[in-house]
């Protein structure tokens, strides 16, 4: 594998993604955890750019860094006694062993068999535009059903969450 902009980008984003992920599960402070989560998800957005899906990358940043980070921070502040619990981890060793085992299974079950099998140069360098996605979203042969279902899901989530989170007295 030669060293070019894409591979350099891949390694930088890997550091972001995995470092952020480790930060999320190890940091004791929940706000710092949120920031680590955003670092990780920013790395994922970088992958999307490398995989020529820039629209998804923008969406990733817009939804996660723009909205979910804010939402998590608000929730952290609303449940503040969180910081007072001293004991924050349970079953540390078994969880670590379990997740490591899962990683090895995934690595040897899924990743290693295709090791070196893919010749990336053979992949056609097609460019998918946002217009294609827009046409497919509302096409009867495309994704119009999931598109509308997504809308219903969002409506239900919003109504449900407002119903749950509202103060009872008001």
């Amino acid at each position, binding site marked *: 594998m030669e060293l070019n902009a894409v591979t350099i980008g*891949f390694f930088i984003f*890997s550091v972001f*993604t*995995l470092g952020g*992920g480790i930060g*999320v*599960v190890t940091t004791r402070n*929940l706000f710092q*955890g949120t920031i680590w*989560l955003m670092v*990780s*998800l920013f790395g*994922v957005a970088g992958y*999307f750019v*490398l*995989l020529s*899906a820039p629209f*998804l990358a923008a969406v990733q940043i817009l*939804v996660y860094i723009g909205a*979910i980070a804010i*939402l*998590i921070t608000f*929730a952290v502040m609303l*449940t503040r*006694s*969180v910081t007072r619990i001293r*004991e*924050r*981890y*349970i*079953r540390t060793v*078994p*969880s*670590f062993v*379990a*997740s490591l085992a*899962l*990683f090895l299974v*995934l*690595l040897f079950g*899924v*990743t290693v068999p*295709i090791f*070196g099998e*893919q010749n*990336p140069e*053979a*992949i056609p360098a*097609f460019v*998918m535009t946002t217009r*294609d*996605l827009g046409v497919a979203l509302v096409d009867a042969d495309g*994704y119009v059903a*999931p598109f509308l279902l*997504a809308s219903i*899901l*969002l409506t239900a989530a919003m109504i449900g*969450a407002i119903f*749950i*989170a509202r103060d009872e007295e008001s």
Partner: protein
Amino acid sequence: MVPLWMYLAVAAALFCIGVFGVLSRRNAVAILMSVELMLNAVNINLVAFWRYSETGTDLLLNGYAFTAFVLIVAAAEAAVGLAIIITVYRNRRSVIPEEAVTLKG
């Protein structure tokens, strides 16, 4: 270009970090954040498979659109999950899932 297996390896690692967080953290908000990590690991895989697949034009968008829908589900999950955590906290002054056992017989 980066070969496919490297994306899969990173996604697997991210997924397992998320699994570790879900299993070992006590705080419900931290568990939710770990779930978000797992969902994103899945998204990396979806987009990577989409990019490297050589299927016909009919399937050209499947991975792409599927990722967008996973994003919607992740958002809905975060919204409702956090609302539940806030309500449980208000009623029981606790954010530890093991302690919210009112519905247990």
